């Protein structure tokens, strides 16, 4: 060890330690000056006024007015802190373009619903009955065979970028939706539609085939108008990250994996007449975060890190009620249901399907596993609130009955082996069962009871893209998923067409299915339409292809300090439910400090 070597090492080590110290200081400074995400939880200023707006903005006007005041009639004291509503939802949106294929995903729709709005909206007071009210279209006219529809537009509505909402904007939006690259959800219907601009506030849609339920369709979020100027600017690919619509909130930023920030649109027209809200929303900002984890969501709201949770999985209301400052929950009846469906090409014997169907214990699962937030449903693919639902179908649905199940297995040619499993020609009955984590409890329980019964059920919990992929490729025997739409043709398309996400391939085996769907497409009025769906569902249930299990719960958990929110089912586009939402920060502080 000669001296020079020691000196070198010492210097190096000092240098190294110095570097580490510098990094540490730098990191500390970086964090202090630049916290990764700053969200206002509880403001530290002492000037917190629980402001009730000095002018009441909820007026129940029964006279339909076509003009809207240009400035907001709502006042907020200038010194009041900005109100930011933080919402934890299940996932980040996949895109914010309502006309893009990604806009059928519930988590995307929730945010899209704030930036855009549809031409008609559902009245929340009538739920679960789907009652439509005018929003951007205030009146309509239709010819006798439902091929020509004429609409009158609401006046004084603007897009976030200042463009006026007028007939040419409507025409632009419809024409844009025809672009094949977007994957518009209702492309077959509008493909050959022509839009005629009659005047600035009158427009007509001409279809080559009758579309008797057009109003229903125009209430779907996918039909929201987009700003022609911005849509042109951003194009097909980038508009979903820079959306511009007419809704009560405008898009500010999207930090991937972190949050989406929306800001109040001060020139908002106020929403549908029946709701009676004039002017823009009350909160200044809304922040959406995608949080898959239940614990995180629970803790976020308990600590005030967020103000609202949507779709908490496996929610036990008593957990929330147990908290000293009880946070309230809203659940909402809806058309969404959880379905069990088969791949009839793989599970071809109806007896096997009926046997499995007889093992569905709806009552217990709804009561114990969803804590009574779901209601058992004995029906086929048509939701109980929708066109084509016939209450008598419940009689055809197999009930939970172990003996009946054994009989069906025997009819299918299976006998129980020594190990308690069913065998036919030496092979056990293996069912590959797919689903997603949202229904994990029910699925686990179902798989366990199938295994106990003697069927070799193999469960795979997958993420949504994988699930869709495998169903599409026919790589499944049975699946359990949720679906919800007020439009029956949507649900039928899901299960019984080659392009449907939950393709059961029933249409390949039974030609009546295809014929009935065609009949529905060509129906001249709603009665014909309803009859077609009724018949289809009967055939479906008799063959045990798609069975409803229970209603999909739509639950919102809100802090006590949030008021004015109206709970709507997830895929329903209703921007007005957010207009009256208000946050009382003083109450929030009081609620959180135990």
């Amino acid at each position, binding site marked *: *060890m000669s001296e020079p070597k020691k000196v070198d*090492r*010492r210097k*190096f*080590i000092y240098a*190294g330690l110095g570097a580490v110290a510098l*990094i*540490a200081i730098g*990191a500390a400074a*970086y*964090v*202090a000056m630049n*916290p*990764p*995400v*700053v*969200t206002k*939880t509880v403001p530290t200023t002492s000037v917190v006024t629980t402001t009730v707006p000095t002018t009441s903005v909820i007026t129940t006007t029964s006279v339909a007015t076509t003009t809207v005041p240009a400035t907001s009639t709502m006042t907020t004291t200038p010194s009041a802190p900005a109100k930011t509503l933080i919402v934890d939802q299940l996932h980040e949106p*996949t*895109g914010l373009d309502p006309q893009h*294929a*990604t806009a059928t995903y519930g988590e995307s729709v929730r945010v899209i619903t704030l930036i855009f709005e549809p031409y008609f909206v559902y009245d929340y007071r009538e739920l679960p009955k789907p009652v439509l009210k005018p929003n951007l279209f205030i009146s309509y006219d239709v010819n006798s065979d439902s091929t020509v529809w004429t609409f009158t537009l609401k006046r004084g509505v603007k897009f976030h970028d200042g463009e006026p909402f007028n007939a040419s904007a409507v025409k632009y939006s419809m024409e844009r939706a025809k672009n*094949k*690259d977007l*994957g518009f*959800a209702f492309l077959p219907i509008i493909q050959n539609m022509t839009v005629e601009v009659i005047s600035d506030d009158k427009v007509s849609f001409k279809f080559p085939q009758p579309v008797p339920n057009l109003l229903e369709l125009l209430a779907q979020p996918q039909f929201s108008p987009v700003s022609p100027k911005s849509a042109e600017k951003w194009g097909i*690919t*980038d508009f*979903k*990250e820079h959306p511009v619509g007419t809704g009560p909130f405008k898009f500010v930023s999207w*930090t*991937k*994996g*972190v949050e989406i920030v929306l800001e109040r649109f001060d020139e908002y027209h106020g929403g549908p007449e029946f709701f009676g809200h004039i002017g823009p929303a009350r909160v200044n900002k809304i922040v959406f*975060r995608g*949080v*898959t*984890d239940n*614990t*995180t969501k629970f*803790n*976020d709201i308990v*600590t005030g*890190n967020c103000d609202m949770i949507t779709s908490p999985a496996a929610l036990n209301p008593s957990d929330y009620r147990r908290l000293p400052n009880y946070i309230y929950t809203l659940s909402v009846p809806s058309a969404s249901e959880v379905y069990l469906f088969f791949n009839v090409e793989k599970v071809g014997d109806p007896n096997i399907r009926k046997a499995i169907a007889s093992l569905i214990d709806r009552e217990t699962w709804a009561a114990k596993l969803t804590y009574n937030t779901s209601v058992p449903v004995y029906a086929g693919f048509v939701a109980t609130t929708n066109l084509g639902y016939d209450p008598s179908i419940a009689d055809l649905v197999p009930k939970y009955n172990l003996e009946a199940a054994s009989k069906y297995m025997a009819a299918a040619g299976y006998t129980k082996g020594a190990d308690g499993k069913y065998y036919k020609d030496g092979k056990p009955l293996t069912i590959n069962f797919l689903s997603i984590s949202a229904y994990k409890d029910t699925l686990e329980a179902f798989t366990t009871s199938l295994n106990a019964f003697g069927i070799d059920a193999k469960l795979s919990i997958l*993420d949504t*893209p*994988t699930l*869709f*992929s495998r169903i*599409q*490729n026919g790589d499944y025997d049975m699946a359990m998923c949720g679906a919800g739409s007020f439009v029956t043709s949507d649900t039928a398309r899901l299960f019984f067409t*080659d*392009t*449907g*996400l939950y*393709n059961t391939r029933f249409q390949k085996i039974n030609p009546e299915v295809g014929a009935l769907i065609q009949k529905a497409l060509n129906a001249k009025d709603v009665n014909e339409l309803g009859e077609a769906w009724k018949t289809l569902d009967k055939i479906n249930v008799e063959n045990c292809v798609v069975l409803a299990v229970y209603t999909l719960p739509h639950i919102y958990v809100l802090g006590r300090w949030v008021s004015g929110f109206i709970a709507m089912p997830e895929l329903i586009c209703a921007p007005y439910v957010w207009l009256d939402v208000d946050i009382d920060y003083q109450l929030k502080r009081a609620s959180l400090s135990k």
Partner: protein
Amino acid sequence: MSMLGKILLVLKKFITFFLTFVAAITVIFIIMHSIPGDPILYMFETTTLTKEQIEALRALYGFNKPLYQQYLDTLYNFLSFNFGRSTRGFSVLDLILTRLPYTVELAIFGLLWGIVIGLPVGIISAFKQETLYDYSLYTLTLLFISVPVFWSGLLLIIIFAINLGWFPPSHATSPNSVILPSLTLGLAFSGELARVTRSSIIDILELDYVKLAHAKGLPFHQIALKHVLRNALIPITTLCGMRFGALLAGVPIVETIFAWPGIGSLVYEAILARDIPLVQGCIIFMVFWFILINSLVDISYYYLNPKLKAKVLF
């Protein structure tokens, strides 16, 4: 070591680094293209797409080209920092760089926790060898190593975030959100660090010249500072460097538990979303830094201890 020698060493290391990087890209390429079935069907849900659209997608991602061509394209892209676009249309490099600062923050704090906890424990153990302190600390460090991160993370959340409410349980929303996740990582690392510290200090304490200094009657703390610690710091800093590289590469599990928006959770989300370009991009990115830091640590190790040049290290 002469100047030329140093340059040659660095050059050699750089070449090794480059070759290893290319080999890593190859391995990932092989893995990503071993998907059973059609990759387009794997990545996209194609029920709403027409045949032309599917073929267009195939061409966009280059899956219609022969395999070796795809390999060369991939290689060229990554080496020119073109990470491509994810299946949802976002630029992969953008996604990674947006989330990188979070992982860096986590890595730095994790390392600091590990040092703050592990170093003192190791030093005390070493100087109080064979006493009760040593045995109990030894068991403690073994415990830290044995605890799986996905358990300790959950426990820390239960104790400190839920029951005591001192820290937020997840997300990177407030400045002290980083405490719990970095503590999880730091605890796991501290066990290892303590053991290495202990053994390297003991190694040096056994050396003749230290015993000589002790015999000469030099005061204890002088021996400790002047001779022991400085020399023992070499393997310690080496370990820290390598672990820092590993932390920087992102720890998917800890980031997922704490919903920490770093590149570890990005990789996991990409895997769930079956987004091959994103998965490839993320892993290559992580591997790049991992190899780079390891190479740098290797170089510094050689530089510090030229005697080791001759040994067969691996």
